[in-house]
Each structure stands twice: as C-alpha cells, then as structure tokens.
C-alpha cells in the first residue's frame, strides 16, 4: 500500500487560462457555422453533382483507341508554352529576388538605415503583398500586351513582396552578437551586413527563393489564364474551343511538371539547411 492513501491534489492551471481556451474554441466554431450559412455551402451538392463531374471527367480522356494518336500530336505542341511558363516563373523569381534584397535590409529593424526609411520599406512591402499575383497580371496584361512579359512582371512583384517579408523576418531573428562585434570594430554598414548578416541568413534565403520559384511555377499557369502567356493561356484557349481532350492532357502535363519541380526544390532545400 502506498504510504499516503489520499492522493495529493494536483495543481490545476488558473481558471482564467482554461476559460480562454474554451472561448477561442467557441469563436472558431462560431465563424465556421456563420461562413457555412453565408456561402450556402452544401455538402449534399457535392454528391448530387458527382454524376456531372464524372461525365466531364470522361471527356478529358480521348477514347482508348485514339489515345496514342491524339496525345502524340498534342504533346509536342505543348512543349513551347510549357517552357514559356517555366521561363515566366524563373524570370519572375530572379528579378523578384534581386529587387527584394535591398528591401530586406531596409525593412529589418536591426539593419535599417533609420526609422523613416524602414517604415517606407515596410509599407511598400505590405502593399506589394496585398495585391494577389492574379490581380497583378490582370492589371498588367492590358498595359504590357498579352504575352509572357506581363506574367513575368506580375510574378516579380509578387516575389518581391513575399521574399522581402520572409527575408526581413529571418534577418531580424539572427544572433545580434556578430553585428555588435562588427559595429564595435568600426566596420561600415554594408560590410557589416555582408560579414555578420549574410552568412547567417544565406542558406535560409536560398531555400525561400526555391520555395517561391515553386509557387511561381503554379502561379504562372494560373496567370496565363488571364492572358499572361505560357501554358495557362493555352489551357484557356482549349477550354474556349471545348477541346476537352486537349484540356485533359494539359492538366496531366501541368501536374507532372509541378510535381517534378516541387520534388527537386524540396530535395535542394533539404541539402541546404
């Protein structure tokens, strides 16, 4: 028998803490219910619509006897728009990274020049991020003419916002010791950043750039849909002509390419950190 028969009361967290948890849960649940009501979300519709779904799905694939000839003629035609999509994503990521670099250091509290320019940089980044890439493309297509250029510019804008935000959060989280040491040694501002900050954030930043490239590959398909070039543009074209087998093939190709890019990027990032 235990030396003490009556178990000692285990201290419980204060009542306020427990109530706070319950309250948060109630708020989340309330919002879900409200959102369901407002959007008329109906789970049953998912099932009643299933028949249409399968009918449409069936049209995406050519009859088995024609698969060879159909895909054989189509696939080579997709190479050019597909490469264009990757190029749009690549160019957007490249220039986005280049332009984000100075903004990262201007917007980080520990490397900023002064409070005013830091504030300006932060507001600029917030504005850049608040405009979705699709909206950028929709704005830029009429200005820059239908084609890959507005797509690349749209993704550049989007990449600047995302990379500068992630980058400045990384910069603000570095070990401040080396910064203090280099300031104490009389190093200039740029040299201090190059020697004390860059080595601490480089691997993480490269990983973010790869991640943004991943996002941009997917996004460049979508913005192609509003006329910004690439395979998204082709997809929209095929849909307009009710060429469902063409649409089906494009979907499969996009899926395969995104999967490969994601896989490569995940592998590359895992090697970095």
């Amino acid at each position, binding site marked *: 028998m235990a030396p003490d028969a009556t178990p000692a009361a285990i201290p419980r967290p204060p009542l306020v803490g427990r109530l706070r948890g319950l309250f948060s849960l109630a708020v989340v649940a309330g919002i879900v219910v409200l959102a369901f009501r407002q959007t008329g979300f109906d789970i049953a519709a998912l099932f009643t619509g299933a028949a249409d779904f399968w009918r449409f799905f069936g049209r995406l694939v050519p009859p088995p006897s024609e698969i060879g000839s159909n895909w054989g003629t189509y696939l080579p035609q997709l190479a050019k728009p597909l490469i264009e999509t990757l190029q749009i994503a690549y160019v957007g990521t490249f220039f986005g990274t280049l332009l984000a670099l100075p903004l990262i250091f201007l917007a980080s509290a520990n490397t900023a020049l002064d409070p005013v320019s830091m504030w300006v940089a932060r507001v600029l980044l917030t504005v850049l991020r608040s405009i979705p890439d699709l909206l950028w493309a929709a704005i830029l297509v009429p200005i820059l003419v239908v084609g890959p250029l507005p797509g690349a510019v749209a993704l550049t804008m989007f990449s600047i916002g995302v990379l500068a935000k992630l980058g400045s959060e990384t910069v603000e989280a570095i070990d401040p*010791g080396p910064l203090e*040491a280099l300031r*104490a*040694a*009389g*190093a*200039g501002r740029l040299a201090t950043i190059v020697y004390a900050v860059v*080595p601490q954030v480089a691997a993480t930043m490269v990983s973010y750039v790869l991640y943004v490239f991943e996002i941009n590959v997917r996004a460049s398909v979508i913005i192609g849909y509003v006329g910004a070039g690439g395979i998204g543009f082709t997809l929209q074209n095929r849909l307009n002509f009710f060429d469902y087998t063409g649409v089906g093939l494009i979907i499969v190709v996009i899926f395969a390419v995104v999967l490969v890019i994601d896989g490569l990027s995940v592998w590359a990032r895992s090697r970095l950190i």
Partner: protein
Amino acid sequence: MSHIEFREVEVTYKTGLKALKGVTLSVPRGQFLVVVGLSGAGKSTLIRTVNNLVVPSKGSVHVGGVNVTAARGRQLRQVRSDIGMIFQTFNLVKRSSVLRNVLAGRLGDVPAWRGVLGLFPREDVAYAHECLARVGIAEKAFVRADALSGGQQQRVGIARALAQKPSVMLADEPVASLDPPTSHAVMRDLKRIAREDGITTIVNLHFIDMAREYADRIVGMRDGQVVFDGTPEEATDQAFEEIYGRPIDAEKDLRGA
C-alpha cells in the same frame, strides 16, 4: 598620461534604468584595468561607452584625446577601429571560416568596396594569419568557427580584435563562458598581448582571484558607481565584500586552477 577618460558619465536606459550614475575615471596608457562587480552593477555599460556602443546620457568619454561620445559617422568608425573588443559569447560569425572572422577586424581600416568583395590587401591577410598565430591557433584558419571549442573561439575573438591593430582593448566578461583552466589561458593571452603591444586594456570580470592575479589596477562597481579603485594588493577580501555588498565566502570556491 591618461589614455581613456570617463568624465562624469551617466547612462539612463529607455526603460528608465540608471545604469551609470556619474563615473569619473582616468586610465593611463598601457594599463591593464580590471572592473569587478555583481551582474547589473554597470560594468558592461561602462565598457560600452568607450566605443560608443552605449551612448552616455550625460558626461563624456575620451580616448587618446578624442571625445568618443560626440563622435559621429566616419570619425566614430575611425575611433572604433582603434578599439578592439571581445565578448562573453565571442560574437563570431559561426558559419564563416576563422580567417574570415579575423579579417572582419580589418573592415574598419580597408576601403568599403574591398571589404564587401572580400578583396583584402595581401598584407592584411598575412596579418590576420599572424594574429591567429599569436593566440596559438594558426592551423585553424580555414576551419568553420562553430567547429572550434569555446576557448579556441574566444582566441579567434582576440585575434579579430588584434587584427584592428588597436591601442585600446575592451573585454566584456571574456571568460565567463569558459572552464577555469581555459579561462586562465585566455587571460594570460590577453595580458601577454597587452604587455607586448602596450595596449590599454579594460576587462570586466566576475572572479576575484582572477582580478587579483592579472590586474594592474582594480575598479569595483556597485549600483552604477565606482566604489573601489586600487591596486590588487589593496583589493582585500574585505574590500570585495564592500564591492559586492555581501560576504564572498561562497565565491571563493569558484576559483580556477
């Protein structure tokens, strides 16, 4: 002739904390000064007013006749490049090589573009290697800093400060993160180099015995003020009890080998 002069230095932090309450001190050229006191006594703040990492709210600090407190921009960088500093947590860039860390000490003297591109003059690179040799880790030049032991990392810290060719060396609790034998080895290095190069040195220390062993002069601080100023011989146990404001018996056990 005095090399470093604190003139009624007061520091009040934004939080309202008064870290220094009017410190006046004069440190002659070449002196090895050890500042002792409890955590929070103002030692770190005092040492940081010398290179203006902490800006005094009142009073001024002068190094070699230059008012550091009033210095700005290029002039401040010039003053700082003449003042080496080593830190309790070493403050090395862990992902960079030892050599690159030491070369960072030259950044105050080389043109900005050379520093940024890493194109240091040959003699600067040679000097960085020489500094590493002086602290006994010449063979570690191309190793990443985080691959070294604590004692070795602090030696890189000393080498980086030395690379500045400083006339003043500041050391903020340089051995507080090290084991006792390593602490003594690092203190011996510091003292030897200060002697050889005639560097005026201010060291913050926790340990009484170490202060007595290495100091030319001991300054005791309590609550933002200088409460003791004398030779190691004058710094008796009783004097330390007054500095600390409590008995020191428990701390005797902390003496290093």
